[in-house]
């Protein structure tokens, strides 16, 4: 009897997955533990194992197509097996399998039946006014980011899209020219707003639209912490992960958050919700965007453990192998552009968090103290805070606390 392979649910919020690539062709043999296909969710691309041993008889969701979770994507069985019956009764057997295997997930889906259904339709929500303008300008609505409730596209969103498009492509070919020179390569290239890019765009847009940002900057004298890092690293074994500056920053932020727990909150439905765990995210740049892996309970972990986890998560992030649990649930994010020679910058808060720390490079500069000029390694850091939750003085105190810890690293031990 042939088996039906279902679209797996790879994260709490996943409702559908896109088949990036089938690693086996129809008719090829597969082993249960062998990778069968690559699936792209909202943030990661993952290999999915076949789960059954046999022959891949039929692919039901082709490459580039999306399939809802717990719905059939392939049939695996014995070579030459007749699958007509299965294809016909797919709905029935699939229901049975679901019940047996994914009972828990079933329940979760039922909690929000409407939302799931709407996302499955994947038709853009837009007002008639937005549709009219989009129609007149030949714009595909699904490419416009909606600022309204549930991503509803309003007139101003389309207008904004048109304005930006015009900025990017200042010398667009006229309609007549386009018709004549259809065969020619156009003077521009369209990058569809999909996958990670779309997620980042929506999240950042939402953050800056809903959270009133303000920024405070401080200089930190880094001599002591650099010395400490050198000492600590000299005591590590060959195969142990070196303690990075980011590990130290995460630890320092974790300690500071313990003193100022409001930075460990998020806004939801008009309430400020305080988290118990202190989980610090670290922005990691990728070719196709960025991702923020999270190190959990930083305040309870030693520097060695943080360094090891950091190394592992960055590796996974670069390979697109992060599991959903590894990039969600963060309390506070650190973004470090020091390695790109950036002295200082401001970051957009990673929603639903209420603050983010933007870190620049360490540089030696003359510092005047008590009438004496000293050369000091200085690092500038800028805290972006959500003013709905955090006020200026509080942001300053919190940032000062991080500075104190970094300048007097004995506090790591306290």
């Amino acid at each position: 009897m042939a088996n039906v392979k279902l679209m797996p649910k790879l994260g709490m919020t996943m409702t559908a997955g896109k088949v990036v690539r089938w690693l086996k062709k129809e008719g090829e043999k597969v082993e249960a533990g062998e990778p069968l296909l690559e699936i792209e969710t909202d943030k990661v691309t993952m290999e999915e194992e076949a789960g059954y041993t046999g022959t891949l008889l039929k692919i039901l969701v082709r490459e580039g197509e999306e399939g809802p979770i717990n719905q059939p994507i392939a049939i695996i069985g014995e070579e030459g097996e007749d699958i007509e019956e299965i294809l016909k009764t797919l709905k029935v057997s699939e229901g049975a399998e679901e019940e047996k295997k994914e009972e828990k997930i079933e329940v979760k889906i039922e909690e929000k039946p409407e939302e799931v259904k709407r996302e499955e339709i994947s038709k853009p929500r837009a007002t008639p006014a937005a549709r009219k303008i989009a129609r007149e300008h030949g714009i595909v609505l699904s490419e416009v980011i909606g600022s309204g409730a549930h991503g509803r596209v309003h007139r101003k969103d389309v207008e904004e899209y048109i304005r930006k498009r015009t900025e990017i492509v200042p010398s667009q070919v006229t309609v007549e020219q386009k018709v004549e020179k259809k065969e020619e390569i156009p003077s521009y290239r369209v990058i569809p707003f999909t996958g990670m890019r779309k997620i980042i765009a929506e999240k950042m847009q939402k953050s800056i639209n809903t959270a009133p940002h303000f920024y405070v900057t401080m200089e930190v004298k880094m001599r002591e912490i650099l010395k400490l890092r050198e000492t600590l690293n000299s005591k590590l074994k060959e195969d142990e992960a070196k303690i990075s500056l980011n590990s130290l920053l995460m630890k320092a932020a974790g300690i500071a958050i313990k003193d100022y727990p409001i930075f460990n909150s998020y806004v939801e439905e008009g309430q400020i919700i305080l988290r118990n765990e202190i989980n610090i995210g670290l922005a990691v740049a990728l070719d196709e965007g960025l991702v923020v892996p999270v190190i959990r309970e930083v305040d309870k972990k030693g520097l060695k453990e943080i360094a090891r986890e950091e190394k592992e998560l960055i590796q996974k992030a670069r390979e697109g192998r992060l599991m959903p649990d590894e990039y969600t649930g963060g309390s506070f994010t650190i973004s470090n552009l020091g390695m790109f020679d950036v002295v200082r910058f401001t970051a957009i808060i990673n929603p639903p968090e209420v603050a983010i720390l933007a870190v620049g490079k360490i540089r030696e500069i003359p510092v005047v103290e008590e009438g004496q000029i000293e050369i000091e390694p200085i690092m500038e850091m800028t805290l972006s805070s959500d003013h709905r939750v955090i006020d200026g003085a509080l942001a300053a105190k919190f940032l000062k606390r991080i500075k104190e810890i970094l300048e007097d690293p004995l506090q790591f031990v306290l």
Partner: protein
Amino acid sequence: MAEKLYIEALAEAIKEEFERDPNVFMMGEDIGIYGGAFGVTKGMYPKYKDKLIETPISEASIVGAGVGAALVGMRPIVEIMFSDFMMDAMEWIVNQAAKLRYMTGGQLKVPLVIRSPMGSGTGAAAQHSQSLPAMFAHIPGLKVVMPATPYDVKGLFKAAVRDDNPVIFFEHKLLYWTKGEVPEGDYIVPIGKADVKREGKDITIIAGSITVIRSLEAAEKLKGEGIDVEVIDIRSLSPLDTETIVNSVIKTGKVLIVEDDNKSYGWGAEVLSRIVESDAFDYLDYPIQRLGGKDVPIPYNPKLEGAAVPQVEDIIETVKAIFGKE
């Protein structure tokens, strides 16, 4: 221009019509010496003794007599003490007044005005507090008006008296003691013409009768939030001035309809439908919102009574929500 009370402007219109046309007269309960339950005809009695006919307490007979008088060439005004009591006269209003001109191919005319106070806010409980204009607007052959200001009440009343069709004329009780500018002498506000009571560019509020006043107050407060509200007073429910509404919606793209009637199957649903069916559809930039009376009999308890129909605060909150300012 002199400032006058709504009730004064209405009384002025009645007296001027009495003077203008010998066929105009009025019937109703206690409208003579007593001056009417709300005092609209107060002080008219000695002078207009022959024009004010006191009737028994029987709405069916009053309206029936009014229809008969209209058919033989008079121009009667009938006062129904509370518009709730019109239910007793529905046969005469719906099956006779509204139909006879059609059924006789225009050989008969029914120049009848039925004027009546409506609405809640006076602690008069469920049988004396309804706003039911939508019920009458559903019947072809009737014209339905509900002026919101002293200026409009005078001009519309004159238009109603001079119309050859039956006109149901609703006066919200809480409007009687509101003030506004009213010109001296004769002028007409045409039936079937809405009025932009306040110009704005961000959102159109469509209101009628008491909700016009509440919407204007809300609009003033919303100015502080940076929201520029346009308020349309529909004035006539039937015929409805779709053009003024559509033009405004094309301009603003956002709509809130505020009605004092019960929301379900209310006139706001008709207004909404006309917008969606019109050219304005392509300019809508937010789901059309409606505020109306709760679908309950009006409670006697004053707090509950206030909560049963849209108040200024409800209008402000709804508009703010539309602009994401909760």
